[in-house]
């Protein structure tokens, strides 16, 4: 009976894993092997052991990329989640009408694919003729060409990503908020708890799983940032927006160092796994 149940289970998961194996697990394993080779094109890869990883250690640009990726992703995760949660809390207030309307409006940026959004933002940030400059000109604020200055370009990219995804995360947070039983909140209020206290002691703890979901999701996507620097800055000016995935793209597709590129992406993979484990652990611990 148990064997039959297991067989049924395998049958159920078989279709998924057939596709998953071919399109994900297989190539992931293959490129892991490539990361130990030197491979430049049609000639078969030649094994070089750990040399690609060693070279990464001495590659100044890789560390620049790693640094940029970490702080940009960190900033993005912090802003996007704080903003999304605040929006969700505001919308969740019982007296808020128009919730549907806001929810749809918040979804609007997600309907533009990242590349298309980046093209639009190219014109938003385009120096004195960009939308941003036009909007701020009446206030007497002059906006320089944000993408041309290494001091501002990373922020411009993060801002664009925040713009694109905050509404989406707000929708998820809102869904989480509405799942928290309103009786619980009502009870707390009747006990004389202030609005802020209700949020702190009843709402936020109940929101933990959603927060975990959103934070992990936004972290992973933040650490894999590529489309924006690709379309808007090519990693410049002066490598200020060079992300690890952008680095991988340059090494692999422009310099044809396929083994080296694979090694760089595995370093990033390990980093992502570590970060999400830490986040998971941290949020779980705090909830106890």
């Amino acid at each position: 009976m148990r064997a039959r149940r297991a067989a049924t289970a395998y049958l159920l998961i078989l279709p998924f894993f057939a596709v998953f194996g071919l399109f994900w697990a297989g190539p992931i394993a293959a490129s892991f092997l490539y990361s130990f080779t030197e491979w430049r094109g049609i000639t078969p890869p030649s094994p070089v052991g750990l040399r690609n990883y060693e070279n990464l250690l001495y590659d100044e640009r890789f560390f620049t990329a790693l640094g940029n990726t970490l702080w940009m992703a960190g900033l993005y995760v912090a802003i996007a989640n704080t903003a999304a949660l605040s929006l969700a809390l505001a919308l969740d207030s019982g007296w808020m009408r128009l919730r549907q309307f806001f929810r749809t409006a918040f979804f609007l940026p997600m309907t533009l694919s990242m590349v298309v959004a980046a093209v639009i933002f190219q014109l938003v940030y385009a120096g004195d003729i960009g939308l941003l400059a036009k909007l701020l000109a009446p206030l007497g604020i002059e906006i320089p060409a944000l993408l041309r200055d290494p001091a501002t370009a990373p922020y411009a990219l993060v801002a664009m990503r925040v713009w694109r995804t905050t509404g989406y995360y707000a929708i998820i947070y809102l869904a989480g908020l509405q799942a928290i039983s309103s009786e619980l909140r009502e009870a707390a209020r009747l006990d004389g708890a202030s609005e802020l206290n209700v949020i702190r002691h009843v709402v936020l703890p109940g929101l933990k799983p959603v927060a975990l979901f959103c934070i992990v999701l936004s972290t992973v996507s933040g650490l894999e940032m590529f489309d924006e620097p690709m379309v808007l800055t090519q990693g410049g000016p002066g490598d200020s927006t060079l992300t690890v995935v952008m680095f991988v793209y340059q090494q692999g597709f422009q310099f044809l160092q396929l083994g080296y590129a694979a090694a760089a992406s595995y370093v990033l993979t390990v980093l992502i796994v570590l970060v999400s484990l830490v986040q998971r652990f941290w949020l779980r611990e705090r909830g106890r």
Partner: protein
Amino acid sequence: MSDRLTPRRVLVILALFGVLAIIVMPWVWALLSSFKPRSEIMSTGFLPSEWLLDNYSGLFRDTLFVRWMFNSAVVSLSAAFLAMGLCGLAGYGFAKFDFPAKETLFLLVVASVSIPPFTTVIPLFGWMAKLGLLNTYPVLVLPFAASAFGLFMMRQYVSTLPDELFEAARIDGCGEARLFWSVVLPLARPALATVGILVFISSWNSFVWPLIFMRSNEMFTLPVGIAGMNSEQMAEYGLVMAAAVLSSVPMLLVFFAMQKQIIAGLTKGAVKG
């Protein structure tokens, strides 16, 4: 709770509308720009001096926009439905059965999310070529159908369904196939809808994948086609704006129509994570 407008509430509402303005502005601006003549796109002023449909007619006449839209729709819808099937089946398997290597397999899938783009492209490209899948729809559909998030979400959701239900059905002589079809699927509909829409979104927006695996103009999807209008050699901003506006409409409609299911799925799926 009362419905009175206290000063604090007014502030919150004002802030919300402020955020709303920021969120909507670039899209509205794209919309306005799409009606402008070519020379006005980057000049001062928000409203077109005259409202022209040139960019739209240009889009339909000079590019394969309709074809790209069709490709995107075919690919994304197929991916969404296939993902609902694959993830539904597997999610049920993971939620309600015990079998050797269960946790390992599940972790493997979840960990695959951490793999950055490009890592898998080079090996895959060779394999797809051998299978004759380059420049075909399946190569864009299948990888998105095996969605790790989808599996994760279905597992969470199905595990919230009471075991007794399944036992009762089995005692009634219900086979596993029928059980899945007439118990799991209907009950998990909100989660399935969520998986469908998430997969739809990621497929609809994906860029790197179709860029590399599609080899001809007629097989491009919207993002690749639109990005092609914006190369350094030929920046057709008016057309890009028109294309951006039109390309966002289907997704907006999908979201609008399915909002309830999505919210319900998110609430129970992600939230229980």
